[in-house]
């Protein structure tokens, strides 16, 4: 990018004036007579000093994002009615004019599709789990299963963006960036917001770096994407001939040069750059120590499944997420792709569940036995749900499901959530009967768990104060223990 253009983009009236004041004698005098005349308002920075607003229940978040939207009807939201009416048309009174995606809008029929999987109840709350999730079912008593979350978007990208940033339109900061901005990093040797990607064999939807973007916040708050290869962070190892001391010297010199150009140009991104160099210098020591599997006992490998030894898999990412989180990373965001089961759902879903079941359960168990589950909030869920009717041809044992925003299931564990099953959908799994939880409510609740009043946590940008929950969102107390 053209540096002058970039500089121009970062320039605003206040910075322009404050720069000019150094050049013009008159303004300089003005600033002498009235100290603070040209200072930037520090009201935004004040937040950093007053957060958390109250005692947080959760200190860190691990968000296991299931990208593509897993079918709630084949995993958690058991609807025998659908099995009874398998193949029958979805009653118009249930659909009630709900908008459809371009993929099924032209479909002549909407035959209901009962799940092919066997369901059974687990835990003291009798939560239903399909047979595809045997390991997670064992953790039922630690899970807060919300069956009635709903969203406004019906296609992947806006829905994902909505979940991640509180707005369907892009360019807002991601949840992790908000947390990083508000609460900062516990461990100064690691980024506050880390992103890990993995891919299942099912029909996938891409994830883009805009989902972990810092938006209008300082770019130090953007998510740091770890590589899925053997080295989670590339180029951390110095070449043989460079010693640690040399590196320090180089960095000091570069930093001095950067300071100079900051004084000259005033681009705040230069400051961010300096901070990022320093962080990566410390990461050189921290990351290998933290990501090494050498110190993990064999039982951990058994717990997460041997796949956790294969870099880039969901299991490996879950294990890495635990390691990062226990080392003070505020927000670890995983994305597992491949849940977009428009067709061939039974086979694809089974594959996806195999990827995530054991390792997600292991993550809860692992945190729990270390005494960290209470302060770590684990969230599992997609961007919307899937329809109760079939997309494409419905056969006896094969079907597909389209996007369904009106109700779907996510679960959370630890971090002050109340274990149990929350909310009820109707017999068709189409509408919400009780405890609707909007995405904004979900965000508000998570903020609350982190000790943040979502309505008071704002950032002023373009003359307006923004928050993660936009202008809505209520804390859902039913979900909080």
């Amino acid at each position, binding site marked *: 990018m053209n540096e002058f253009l970039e500089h121009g983009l970062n320039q605003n009236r206040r910075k322009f004036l404050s720069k000019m004041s150094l050049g013009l004698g008159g303004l300089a005098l*003005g600033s002498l*007579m*009235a100290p*603070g*005349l040209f200072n930037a308002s520090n009201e935004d920075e*004040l937040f950093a*000093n*007053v*957060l*958390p*607003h*109250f*005692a*947080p229940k959760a*200190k860190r978040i691990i968000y296991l994002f299931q990208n593509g939207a897993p079918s709630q009807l084949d995993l958690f939201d058991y609807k025998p009615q659908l099995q009874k009416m398998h193949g029958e048309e979805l009653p118009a009174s249930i659909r009630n004019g709900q908008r459809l995606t371009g993929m099924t809008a032209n479909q002549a029929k909407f035959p209901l599709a009962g799940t092919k999987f066997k369901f059974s109840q687990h835990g003291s709350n009798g939560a239903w789990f399909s047979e595809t999730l045997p390991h997670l079912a064992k953790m039922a008593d630690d899970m807060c299963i919300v069956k009635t979350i709903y969203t406004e978007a019906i296609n992947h990208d806006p829905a994902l963006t909505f979940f991640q940033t509180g707005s369907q339109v892009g360019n807002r900061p991601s949840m992790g960036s908000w947390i990083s901005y508000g609460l900062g990093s*516990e*461990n*100064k*040797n690691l980024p506050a917001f880390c992103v890990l990607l993995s891919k299942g064999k099912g029909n996938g939807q891409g994830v883009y770096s805009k989902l972990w973007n810092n938006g209008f916040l300082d770019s130090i708050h953007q998510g740091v994407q770890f590589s899925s290869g*053997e080295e989670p962070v590339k180029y951390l190892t110095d070449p043989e001939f460079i010693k640690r001391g040399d590196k320090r010297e180089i960095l000091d010199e570069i930093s001095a040069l950067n300071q100079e150009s900051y004084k000259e140009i005033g681009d705040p991104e230069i400051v961010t750059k300096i901070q990022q160099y320093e962080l990566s210098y*410390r990461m050189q*020591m*921290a990351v290998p*120590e*933290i990501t090494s*599997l*050498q*110190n993990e*006992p*064999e*039982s951990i*490998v*058994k*717990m997460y*499944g*041997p*796949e956790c*030894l*294969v870099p880039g898999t969901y299991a490996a990412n879950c294990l890495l997420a635990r390691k990062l989180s*226990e*080392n*003070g990373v505020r927000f670890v965001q995983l994305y597992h792709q491949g849940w977009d089961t428009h067709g061939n759902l039974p086979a694809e879903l089974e594959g996806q569940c195999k990827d995530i079941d054991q390792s997600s359960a292991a993550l809860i*168990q692992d945190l*729990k*036995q*270390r*005494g*960290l589950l209470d302060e770590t909030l684990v969230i599992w869920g997609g961007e919307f749900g899937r329809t109760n009717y079939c997309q494409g041809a419905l056969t006896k044992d094969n079907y597909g499901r389209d996007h369904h925003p009106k109700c779907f299931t996510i679960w959370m564990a630890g971090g002050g959530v109340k274990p149990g099953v929350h909310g009820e959908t109707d017999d068709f799994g189409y509408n919400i009967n009780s405890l609707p939880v909007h995405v904004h409510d979900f965000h508000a609740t998570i903020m609350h768990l982190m*000790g943040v009043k979502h309505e008071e946590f704002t950032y002023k940008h373009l003359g307006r104060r923004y928050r993660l929950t936009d202008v809505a969102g209520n804390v859902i107390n039913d979900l909080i223990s």
Partner: protein
Amino acid sequence: MNLKKWTGFVNNALWVLNPFLLLIAFFNEKLKLGVYLEWFGKMHPLFLHFPIVLGILIGIYYIVDKKGNVASNILHPILVGNAFLASIVAVLGIFLSKQDGYDDALIFAHQWGGIAIAMIGWALIYLQQYNQRFKSSYILRVEFAMVYLLVIIIFTHKGAQLTHGASVISFPQKEGTSENTQVIKVVTDSNATLYVRAVAPILQQKCVSCHGANKVKGELLLNTPENIQKGGKSGNILTADKDKEAMLFERIHLDITHKKHMPPDGKVQLTTEEVAILSRWIKAGGDFKIKMNELAKTDSLFLLANKYTPANNTKVEVKTGLPDLAEYNSNYCAVNYLYHGSDAIDVNFFQGSFYSRDVLKKLEDLQDQVVRLNMQGMPLTNEDVSIIGQFNNIENINLNYTNLDLKTLEPLKQLKKLKLLSICGLKFTESELTNFLKGSTIANINIWSSVIGKTQLEKIAARYPKTKFTIGDNLESQVLKINPPTIDQDSSIISKFLDVKMKHMLNGVTIRYTLNGVDPDSLTSPIYKNTLRLTRNTNLKIKVFKPGWISSDIIQRNFYKSEIRPDSIYLISSPDQKYLGDGARTLVDLELGGSNFTNKKWLGYKDTTMKFMVNFKQPRVLHQAFLNSLIDVGSYVFPIVSISVEGSNDGIRFAKITEAKFPYELTQKDVMKDIKTFTVDFPNNTSFKHYRFTVLNVKKLPVWHPGKGTTAWIFVDELFLN
């Protein structure tokens, strides 16, 4: 009386007035004034502007008038009047200074400055009248005038600062307010004292401008608890007498028209709320030490103070009154309050290799405040534990994977408030655990041992029903299949030799391999040590073994010896425009294409049939040719159908040598994505200069494929000749 007489009279009066002025100035300390003279003092601000204006005009006159020819009968009365007014104002000023408590340094400068102005004014009369040099020298007059003006400006400004504050002529900060915006620090945490939370902000905002460091009216300072307790000229202000309310209480309650009402009429008044807070605080004894959290939550004083915020023209700085933790924080230790305003502290250590005991030792300063301590993975000894033992309010300690002995944890049992102790991964025996649990009152313990199994731990735990145990499983009994190793070699082509490394993330595994396509077994197959050197075509198969685990799946990989390099090679038919690769070179560049067909390392054909020519300068015997090809069913990339080869020595007439067909049908469930090698065997004694290859692709995609009926792609890279 005419002007001349008046002038004479006043001129004489100055001889009385000025010595008197000097007298009271020198003996200022001992001076005692009556009510009337005090009242006269109040005239000082009224009169002071006359001599200033006159003095400045006189100064300007001396500068402007070069010749000095204004008649003395005009100038003389003005000079006399000026001197008289200056002296009067100076006397009144001294009277005023007796009455109010002002900043001593300012008073001193202003008083003597004022006297100097009066004296210069007096001297001026005689200089103008009798001094010939003064009258004739313009330069001297200007110099004199300059000094005079300077003295006037500097020392009268001191006076202005006394009355209007030090920043009297600073640039106004906000339109409409002549006073600077005050910065009031409001301390919001519940641990703060009531005084700091509400009383001090009120006093600072409404009272300190007259009862503070700059101005000490009535000898009363309201800026610190000590000064408030000291009281003022009329004594203590906080204690009530038998029949009289405390003075502070009385003054703020008097009617605003009353002379003694505070703040005085004309100043910013206290709000009802502020009056309520101050008076309730005084009634409650005016305690400076009582903390907000010591007040009952229903106490009206608490309720009022808790929601108190200073008025609009103040800038509120939210601060906690708690110690700043910056000095305890480092890159490897995070020390934070649990939340804003809490005095409870959360401590996290990171990265064991940087651990230093001094950092923990320093936290002894905060020993009553630390409630949570995470030292997971730190290399600790019993010395560290004895430091932790002093954190008497600690509730949660994480000592997972520290090198500690259970015996050294004894001091922790004394911690009364300890609710959760995590000791996963510590090494201990059953008896050591039993000893530790004896007499422990810790409510929750997280425990995991690599040695003692879960059932055994559960048995021990069952003997201590008061403690809730979370026991980690070492999963001894669980037998899983181990995952295969990774091969650390990107190239699959052996030119002279190729070194292959293998890696497995788990400790204590045995990697066995074979080079001849036979499945490795746990007994006879060679064990991989450091590096495996390959020198010929190899079908490498690897399997991992580890006691307690099911051995891994076999992974295999082909390595190709590229024995014969053609002298030249060219493409007869051109690949698709999008997948030109590097032309014919792509086939023999010793680099394999990888799994992504768009990476320019593949030649892609769809509608044209792939044909290429391999040339040797001399006839060359070939036994075998391999073509590597990509299969990616989802992207319409199917396997090769057939490869036929023709030979020629003159490059014109070609004879068919052989055709290899690969007749298998792909079904929907077949491998979606793969790289496969297609082999062509040549009859014995095949020897030509030119070899022409024709590679056929699938012409009609099967019915199950979304693109049924259309032509499939083939992607080819690397040709090996042997």
